C-alpha cells in the first residue's frame, strides 16, 4: 500500500469508531414532516366559485406579480414592479 492509501485507510477506519457526538451533523433542517403526506383525494375543489360562474377566469391570461417572501431577498424581484 502507498502511504496515501495507508493514510486514507486509517482515516476511514477512524470514522467508524468516532463517538456519535463527534459525528457533527451540522445544522439539520427538518423540512418535510408526516403532516405533509396525502395529495390524492376524492372531493371536488370549490375555491372561489367551483368554475360554475361565467366570471371564473379559467382561461384568462394571468397577470400577477409575486407577493411572497421573495421581497425579503436582496437582489430578488420586489413587488413594486
Amino acid at each position, binding site marked *: 500500500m502507498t502511504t496515501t492509501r495507508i493514510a486514507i485507510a486509517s482515516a*476511514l477506519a477512524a*470514522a467508524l469508531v468516532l463517538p456519535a457526538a463527534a459525528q457533527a451533523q451540522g445544522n439539520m433542517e427538518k423540512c418535510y414532516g408526516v403532516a405533509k403526506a396525502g395529495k390524492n383525494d376524492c372531493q371536488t375543489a370549490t375555491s372561489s366559485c367551483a*368554475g360554475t360562474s361565467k366570471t371564473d377566469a379559467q382561461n384568462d391570461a*394571468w397577470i400577477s406579480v409575486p*407577493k411572497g417572501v*421573495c421581497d425579503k431577498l436582496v437582489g430578488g424581484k420586489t413587488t413594486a414592479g
Partner: protein
Amino acid sequence: MPLALRDLQAAFAAHLLGADRADLTAEVFGDTIPASARLRVYRHHVFESLGAALAATFPTVQALVGADFFRGLARAFVGQSPPDQPVLAEYGAGFPAFIAGHDAARELPYLADVGRLDWALNLAFHAPAGGRLAATDLAALSADRLPSLRLALAPGTALISSPYPLDRIWAASQPDAPAGTVDLDGGAHLLVLRRPDDAAFVALSAGEVAFVTGLADGLSLEEAACRADSGFNLSVAFARLLGLGALAASQ
C-alpha cells in the same frame, strides 16, 4: 348520433385542458344551469386540485411568490404537462425546469433551484426508510479494504447545488421566519436526506461535495476522497455521512 365513449372521453379530456368542444357540450343536459357551466366545474377542479398538489410539493416556491402567482404558474404547467399517472406525490418532476423557462419567473433567478430543492425533499420523503449503511456494518472489515469500497447513496439522498444560498432562502420562507432581508450572494451545496420520520437537508462543505459526488459517480472511497481539496477531513466527512444515514447498505 351520440358520441361513442372513446370520442366522448377524448373530447372531455380536451375540454379539461382548455379546448372549446361544441360536440361535448351537445352531449350534456343543460337547463337553468347550462351545459357549459356544468362542464366548467370539472375543468376548474382539474386545475385547482392539481395546482394544490403542486403547492403541497413545492411549498418553498409558493411561499416565495405568494399563492396567486403560484396558482398562475401551476395552472400554466398543468395545462402544458398534466400528470401521466395517478399518484400526485409523484407529479411535478418537470416543474423546476418549467419555472426556469418561464418569462414570469425570470426576475426570480433562484426560483427554479428552490423548486429543485422542494422536489428533492418530496422524493426523499417518499423514499424507502430502510437500507442505510451504519458504521457498525463496516466494523468487521479490515482497514486496508476500506479504500476500495464503492458505496452508493441511500434512497432519497440527493445533492442540490446552486449559485444561490438555498438554505438561507429556505429558512426565510418558513412561516415562523424572522423579519429582515436575506443576502442573495453566495451559493449552497445541500444534501437532502430521508430520515426515519421526515425529509431534511444539511449544508456540505466543498470537500464533502466532491466526496459525495465521487461516490454518487461510482468511485471508490479512496478515489472520491482524492477529488476533495487539501483541507478535507476524510474521517469527519465519512463519519458524518454514516451518521446521517446518507449511504446505502451494501448488498
